[in-house]
């Protein structure tokens, strides 16, 4: 009997350590593995492939004695069986820091393939895969790599953006906590492809478990990626450092203020050197692409959105967790069919897609396919593909106010539309909520949003109008 229990942050926060201790106290060996991503079932106990969950420590004796009812085979659960897991192929199955487990599941094959085919062929493979940056901007990864490869400079860097600050996103955290060698392999492939010998993983301080796993995994695999060297750097609670130029300033030991572009980080990035800045999911997709080929990856997806996207279903949802699937699935399928509607049992009133800078969408928009272009056409963004579900008790005027408040708290202060506009936005929404000059203040807010959208240096000020204006557009009754 092999008992597997996740040791990722969600499982631990839900009491997995106590459950594991109860099994061990009963003389049963426990393997701590990555999470399957079915978070409503955590702590999930996996006994020879059969699932039990959510389990508390006092249920352990019944499970051991065969008296507890199971969820059936985990791999056959509809939430898992309907996914296309490329990046999360190992989720729930391997011990995060076991090199043996990683080797046994196609580990290091992508790096070996890259070394065998050479740097330019590696870049060509990534270009052929159609992989686009998973951090939100959706820029073609292969083109970025090609730019850095061609840039002059004897020192180049690979920077992994692991400052996953958007609410409703946790896929980066799950990669780092559950499959850290995959991310290291992806970074090593990038380093080999562009001629960089140093990589930094910039992880937010709110993720202590991810930091610990990455540091341990880097030590264990140093000899395998050499001469490439990877180092973890820890953020300090600034949301804006998820913006790539702000992140570079933070890595250099400066205030995390946004830089004007150009110059592009690909040409003048960390310490002024050519630098690839890629999100965790972008780099984590690379080993699979090298192992199976660019065309195999491009065979998944829709339109210009190729491959799979690890979607994060969160908030007030019955079945929340990590759902990796090819682009093109509709919002309604994700929220209602897979997510099962709200956890509260009340009607779904809206979802926010793409974190605090993403638009609020009503059920009338649930036909939208998850696709960068389709979302952009609907004044929304895919972002890091986090979906927050709200029930009908949500007050959209308060959510619009929070979007402005969050921008004010997290603004780096460099550009005026974001620094001042966000505070003026909070004040204007307060006037609207108080019922003062509502129509005039709504017009003022629309004007302010335009200024922020077109006048801000980065996406923080530039995209904060999305949640604000979408809330007003789709839920006008909450503002009047």
């Amino acid at each position: 009997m092999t008992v597997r229990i996740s040791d990722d942050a969600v499982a631990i926060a839900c009491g997995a350590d106590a459950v594991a201790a109860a099994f061990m106290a009963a003389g049963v060996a426990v393997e701590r593995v990555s999470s399957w991503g079915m978070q409503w079932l955590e702590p999930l106990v996996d006994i020879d492939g059969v699932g039990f969950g959510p389990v508390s420590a006092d249920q352990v004796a019944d499970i051991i004695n065969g008296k507890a009812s199971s969820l059936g085979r985990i791999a056959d659960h509809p939430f898992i069986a309907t996914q296309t897991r490329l990046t999360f192929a190992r989720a729930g199955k391997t011990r995060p820091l076991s090199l043996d487990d990683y080797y046994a599941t196609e580990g290091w094959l992508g790096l070996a393939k890259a070394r065998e085919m050479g740097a330019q062929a590696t870049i060509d493979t990534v270009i052929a895969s159609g992989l686009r940056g998973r951090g939100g901007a959706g820029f073609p990864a292969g083109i970025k790599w090609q730019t850095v490869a061609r840039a002059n400079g004897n020192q180049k860097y690979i920077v992994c953006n692991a400052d996953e600050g958007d609410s409703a996103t946790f896929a980066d955290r799950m990669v780092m906590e559950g499959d850290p060698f995959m991310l290291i392999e992806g970074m090593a492939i990038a380093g080999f492809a562009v001629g960089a010998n140093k990589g930094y993983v910039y992880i937010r301080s709110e993720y202590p478990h991810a930091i610990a796993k990455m540091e341990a995994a880097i030590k264990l695999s140093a000899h395998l990626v050499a001469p490439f060297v990877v180092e973890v750097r820890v953020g300090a609670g600034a949301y804006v450092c998820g913006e790539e130029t702000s992140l570079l300033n933070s890595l250099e030991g400066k205030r995390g203020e946004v830089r004007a572009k150009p110059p592009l980080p690909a040409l003048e990035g960390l310490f002024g050197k050519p630098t690839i800045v890629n999100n965790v999911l972008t780099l984590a997709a690379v080993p699979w692409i090298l192992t199976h080929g660019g065309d195999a990856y491009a065979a998944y997806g829709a339109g210009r959105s190729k491959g799979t996207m690890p979607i994060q279903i969160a908030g007030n949802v019955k079945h929340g967790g990590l759902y990796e699937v090819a682009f093109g699935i509709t919002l309604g399928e994700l929220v209602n069919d897979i997510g099962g509607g709200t956890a509260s049992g009340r009607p779904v009133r809206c979802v926010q897609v793409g974190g605090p800078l993403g638009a609020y969408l009503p059920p009338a928009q649930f036909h939208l396919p998850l696709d960068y272009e389709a979302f952009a056409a609907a004044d929304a963004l895919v972002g890091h593909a986090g979906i927050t579900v709200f029930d009908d008790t949500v007050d959209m005027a308060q959510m619009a106010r929070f979007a402005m408040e969050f921008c004010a708290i997290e603004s780096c202060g460099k550009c005026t539309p974001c620094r001042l506009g966000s505070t003026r936005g909070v004040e204007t929404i307060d006037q609207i909520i108080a019922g003062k000059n509502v129509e005039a203040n709504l017009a003022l807010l629309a004007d302010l949003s335009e200024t922020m959208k077109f006048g801000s240096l980065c996406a923080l000020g530039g995209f904060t109008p999305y949640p604000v204006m979408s809330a007003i557009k789709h839920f006008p009754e909450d503002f009047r």
Partner: protein
Amino acid sequence: MASIADILAEHKGREGPLLPILHDVQKLFGYISEDAMREIASVLNLTRAEVYGVVSFYHDFRKEAEARPVLKLCRAEACKARGVETLVPIADSQSRIKVEAIYCLGLCAVGPSAMVGDTVYARLDSAKFKTLLEAM
């Protein structure tokens, strides 16, 4: 590491050493004092204003000691959708624990969530939250 000098010696040769230094200083003392900023500036050949600018920019760094235990409560959208705002009056009704807002712990399908030190808590409701505060 027992002193700022030890921390500086440990990190001085790294690229961009300031954030790792500040993290270690705060871990050792609980905050980053003006004297500490002066010493760091002198060794890294920065101005005091530059070091102060960095310390004051990041939400994690404290310039003054915090005598009370600290709990970080996530108040981002996904935790709001799951009812974190109903816990705020409980936090406000006491003063023994400092309850700080944090924006996202990545536990967005099992909120409301909180963090004390490096320990994370999820699926908080009023009763669990009160118990957690009382146990601190």
